[in-house]
């Protein structure tokens, strides 16, 4: 069987592929193929979950956030954990498509569309959480600097406001970044479409794209610059999420290490969630020759590397309180590790750090079932990391008389599981309506291959 090296030489696209075949294969998935049964099943389940979100949200808005497990001192609970978790998942896609575009990695073209779409829906889910978690949800717009008759404005020193802007801009930018990548492919779909409805639908999305030399030239420039901005933006967004906590003085939150810590965790969950969805879709859509072993290999290795970085962060997290010697901080850390919420601490360690070490072994790395399981574990593990991080510091702050614990209610659960439904539903719609891999970028890959 092949070694890692031969795998590394695995092409990023099957040798027999050419312009025509990629166009046909990918657009037929959307235009010709009858909707498969598994799609209905998957979409149905996702919608059910989404319905749960709707119910939970209505109940929440009607009764107030008292329906959650939050209390004083633990005033932030699952909603914030969900938020950090989703925004983390949301940063993987944009990072792949922007950073690896800048460094010109060919493998990126096989997966970026995919990852970006995931980013979009995850970001949407993330965006809901901060609004849900407000005491007076209807007034969230007060965070926006508009000239009100009260003559009073937002407070820009608050990390929450940074967060509000970061998330807003990130979602808006991701949409454009994702859409601009779609334009040429929509043109292809428009031209291959057989029904009038499809022609008009994709025709409108394509904005009349003709692929003329001028189009392409402007396209390359704008995409390059956008990529150049999106890459740092991803970093900033999750760093700001980290600042939400680092700027607070709660024992265990007040530390400069969180921005990188959070960002690394974000990438980690980004890779994992991408693999988690990509492997099955690749199989179901018969994309083996387009999304090759190579892609999976690369992401798996990235995952391993990121996992090691995260392990370092965890080590630092354990080291700093004792190094700094602040008693409250020490107590908070020990409480996180051995206190009422210690379960989440050890779950996160096993799923995020210990288990993924299996990826060192090429054979296991190449076992797709195992890969899916590991990725799933990491996605789950990251949620527990967020939960542990948000709750324990609050549950064990400076004043012993106000140490308390957190226990979730079904309404906390509704919001979390429901949001997963929201993301999956959106994702299923995407794979049904749009090409899961960027066709024109594959053509570029093919051309580069021919020239080489």
């Amino acid at each position, binding site marked *: 069987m092949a070694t890692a090296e031969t795998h590394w030489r695995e092409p990023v696209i099957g040798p027999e592929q050419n312009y025509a075949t990629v166009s046909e294969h990918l657009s037929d998935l959307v235009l010709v193929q009858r909707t498969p049964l598994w799609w209905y099943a998957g979409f149905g389940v996702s919608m059910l979950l989404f319905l749960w979100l709707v119910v939970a949200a209505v109940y929440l808005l009607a009764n107030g956030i008292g329906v959650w497990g939050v209390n*004083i001192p633990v005033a932030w609970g699952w909603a914030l954990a969900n938020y950090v978790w989703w925004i983390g998942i949301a940063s993987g896609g944009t990072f792949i498509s922007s950073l690896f575009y800048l460094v010109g990695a060919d493998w990126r073209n096989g997966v970026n569309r995919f990852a970006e779409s995931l980013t979009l829906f995850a970001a949407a889910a993330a965006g809901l959480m901060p609004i849900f978690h407000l*005491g007076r949800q209807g007034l969230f717009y007060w965070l926006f600097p508009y000239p009100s008759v009260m003559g009073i404005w937002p407070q820009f020193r608050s990390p929450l406001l940074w967060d509000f802007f970061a998330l807003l801009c990130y979602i808006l930018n991701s949409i454009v970044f994702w859409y601009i990548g779609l334009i040429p492919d929509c043109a292809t779909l428009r031209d291959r479409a057989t029904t009038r409805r499809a022609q008009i639908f994709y025709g409108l999305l394509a904005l009349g794209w003709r692929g003329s030399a001028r189009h392409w030239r402007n396209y390359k420039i704008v995409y390059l610059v956008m990529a150049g901005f999106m890459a740092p933006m991803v970093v900033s967004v999750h760093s700001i999420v980290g600042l939400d906590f680092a700027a607070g*003085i709660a024992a265990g939150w007040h530390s400069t290490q969180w921005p990188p810590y959070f960002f690394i965790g974000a990438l980690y969950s980004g890779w994992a969630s991408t693999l988690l969805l990509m492997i099955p879709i690749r199989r179901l859509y018969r994309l083996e020759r387009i999304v090759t072993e190579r892609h999976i290999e690369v992401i798996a290795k990235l995952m391993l590397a990121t996992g090691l970085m995260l392990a370092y962060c965890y080590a630092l997290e354990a080291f700093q309180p004792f190094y700094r010697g602040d008693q409250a901080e020490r107590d908070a850390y020990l409480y996180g590790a051995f206190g009422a919420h210690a379960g989440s601490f050890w779950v996160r360690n096993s799923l995020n750090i210990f288990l993924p070490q299996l990826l060192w072994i090429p054979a296991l790395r190449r076992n797709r079932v195992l890969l899916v399981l590991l990725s799933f574990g990491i996605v789950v593990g990251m949620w527990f990391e967020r939960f542990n991080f948000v709750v324990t510091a609050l549950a064990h702050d400076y004043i012993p008389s106000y140490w308390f614990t957190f226990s979730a209610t079904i309404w906390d659960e509704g919001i979390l599981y429901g949001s997963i439904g929201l993301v999956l539903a959106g994702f299923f719609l995407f794979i049904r309506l749009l090409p899961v891999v960027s066709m024109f970028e594959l053509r570029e890959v093919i051309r580069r291959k021919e020239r080489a």
Partner: protein
Amino acid sequence: MTAPSTPADLPALRRKLAQETGPRFWRSLEELAETPAFLELLQQEFPPFAAAAVQGFDRRRFLQLMAASMALGGLTGCQKEVEQRQLSPYVEQPPGIVPGLSRHYATATSLDGFGYGVILRHEMGRPLKVEGNPDHPASLGGSSAIGQASILGLYDPYRAQTITQNGQLASDSALRTMLVERAAALGATHGSGLRLLTGAVTSPSLAAQIDALRKAYPQMAWHQWEAVDRDTVRDGARLAFGRVIDTVCDFARADLVLGIESDALSAAPGHLRYARDFAARRRPDDAKSPMSRLYAIESTPTLLGAKADHRLVMKPGNIQHALRLVAGAVKAGPSDWANIPVPQAQELAGLIADLQAHRGRCLVHAGRAQPADIHALCHAINHALDGFGQTVHTIEPVEALPTDGDTSLAELVADIEAGRVDTLFILGVNAAYTAPADIGIAAALRLVPHSIYLGERADETAELCHWHIPAAHEYEMWSDVRAYDGTATIQQPQVRPLYGGRSAHEILAMLLGEARRDDRTALRERWRHASGAADFERFWTEALRAGVVPNSAAAPTRVAPRPDYATALPPPAATAGLSLLYRPDLGLWDGRFADNGWLQEMARPFTRLTWDNAAEIAPATAERLGLQQSDMVELALDGKKLRAPVWILPGQAAECVTLRLGYGRRRAGPVGTGVGVNAYRLRSARNGWNAPGLALAKVSGRHLFASEQHEWLMHGENLIRATTLEQLHGKSPVPEAGTSDASLYPGFAYDGIAWAMSISLNSCIGCQACVIACQAENNIPVVGKEEVARGRIMHWLRIDRYYEGPLDAPATHFQPVPCMHCENAPCEVVCPVQATVHDSQGLNVMVYNRCVGTRFCSNNCPYKVRRFNFFDYSGDDPRPRESWNPEVTVRGRGVMEKCTYCIQRTRQAMIEADKANRPIADGEVLTACQQACPTQAIVFGNKNDTASAVARRKASALDYAMLDELNTRPRTSYETAVRNPNPSIKTS
């Protein structure tokens, strides 16, 4: 008598009342009770109040006033309701009333007969806040948690509102007819069948009326019953002096205090005054009065014990031995007592030496829960050490009828069972609930041919009596009451009876045939006679204004213990086996306040429990019996059984189980019914306080407690700093954590007023008065047990309790924690909408309506003093709208709130000063907590004014800021706790 033709079903009505809130009630009442009797009753009950209610004015106030009575109903005054768009001026403006200005009226509030002076603040004619009366010797401005909460009791919508006969609505005229009939019938038999049951009575006018009654009905008998009585105190006096004598302690003159499970700071008559005097002697940096030393010997923790420099934990039996030892040693008893073997002899030796060294300047005080011989011994010791006339003063009993409650009640029951009772009047005593099980009053009440109960609520006793007459609240009637030292106060009504209550005076008057008598006139007549004042009008108005009847204090009497008193002492209790200690509850007392949400939700000083009592046991005992916190146990005592949850209480004596009275009510009302377990079911007349021979067995199941504090120990030293007087006086320095104000930022200048607060950990006795005062002043809602258990209590001010030292006898620290008003407030920086910001006096202000509820501020508050409206707590609070304080915004759902340093008070004062273009004087503004505090632990003022009390406190070396290493620069600081232990005693 005229029984209603088609009577309304009152129980059903009550059930509705329990569910429905204001607006709906009126309609359902109509639907329910369309009976002639009911309509007649409406005629009599409501018009006066309706009138009173409509004479309102001003948006907010009028709004709340309109919603006042359930009778008027229809509108609710919560801020979130539709905008009230009407203005209704007076028809004729009462003289002196200026719309929007508050007025103050003096009266008194009483507990087990003894009263202390209070002043009620009125807004638009409605009493809204209780404050202690600075001119009253028993208060000196301080007040108790129960006193503070009395205002809620006044407005409690679940008070009885209708006269009932056999559980059915009856009219006023029906009542009068009945009384006339009874009077006639009894008159014929010289009242041989007439019995009167009251609580402890100190009211001269009531006593006079009862005397008149006895003259009119010579054969009648007057019985007395208080569940939390002073029988042991009286018996102790009888043992020592041969007759009943009241003692008045002078803590201000005591250099050395020995408390035998003393309730001097918590429950004894005059405890507010005692607390003030005691605290005055515990100021380490006060040169004029050297710090006193405090010993405590007790079985279950008391507020006094918590402050003790030496606290000896003993079983009741051992306490009796120990005190005999002390008595013997100081020549207050047989010399052979001096060598009784007792535990902790080393400490006792130190104590004895100290006592002898402080002859004439020491004070021994025992709590009412101690047996009679202890009290006798205390008298003897005080006498032997020349305490009499120095630290202890003896006066003639203040009570009108100093009788033993148990025997009195037992006689009554015997009479009833012997069929000698024809008519029984019960005036405000819920005997059916509070009487010891073995007296069996409940069963007896059913045998009485005619039983008339005057009570505030339709409680356990009302259920068993033929007639139930709604009693007027203390603030609704003319009366008078005496304080611990005999000082009398004339109680003037603060408001017309909200729910048509009657006073005891009125009922007795009717019985005396003085129909349609006016309480006020009668009271005036009595005092005109009693005072003998030349210019009575002046005396009267002055007495009402000041809230004190001038020099009405009882004169001291000279008595000495009988030399042979020792021989008469009953033998000490056995020290073997488990014993059950019944103790009054700091909030519910004997259960009469069970329907008061504020007192139910008040965290008890030691357990920090709300909404519960528990079997409080020592850690050692828990280990021996293998019991965990909140396990369920079955307490068995001479055949009677009771299940209760376990609470492990450090500082409790081993093998002693303490059970607080007042819980497990069956008919307390929607708030208090079924809360906790009913200790009376085990209590017997014989062992009213300490019951040996308890059997305790673990049973299945665990209990959910709602405790405000979950961690007992203090981690790190920066929360509470403690030292000893020795260290303080140079021998070794005060522990001082260095702080630097270094900052990259230029600070803001607060050159005008800079409000600040200083809290003395030496003065705070953990009595919770400030907590309830804050709740009353700032419209803090009650959230209920479930929400408290979920960590959502709303108190702006809490008193943290920390233990230090050995688990079995730890040192206890109380620390009141309001908002610190940090100059570098961490909460403000993280608020995205500027809902919490600083003002130019350096206050950390919270703008409720700007808050969107991110709760980041609470996360970022290192002191965790912020509170969040997770639900619409104030909207769900059953208290009527007109009882909210109109000067403070009522917070809606989803907004953060916290202590404001009573900004409504500071702002009002600033406006007044500004109008006069003068500066604010020191002490012109008192925060609610400061005003209520009986020990003046809290000082508030302008720290820029170097002459101000707060500035002086902050200048002291003892002043420190909590968590100052965070550089939050709190405006609230603390005075280091200083203890004054006896150097000769080596504490383990």
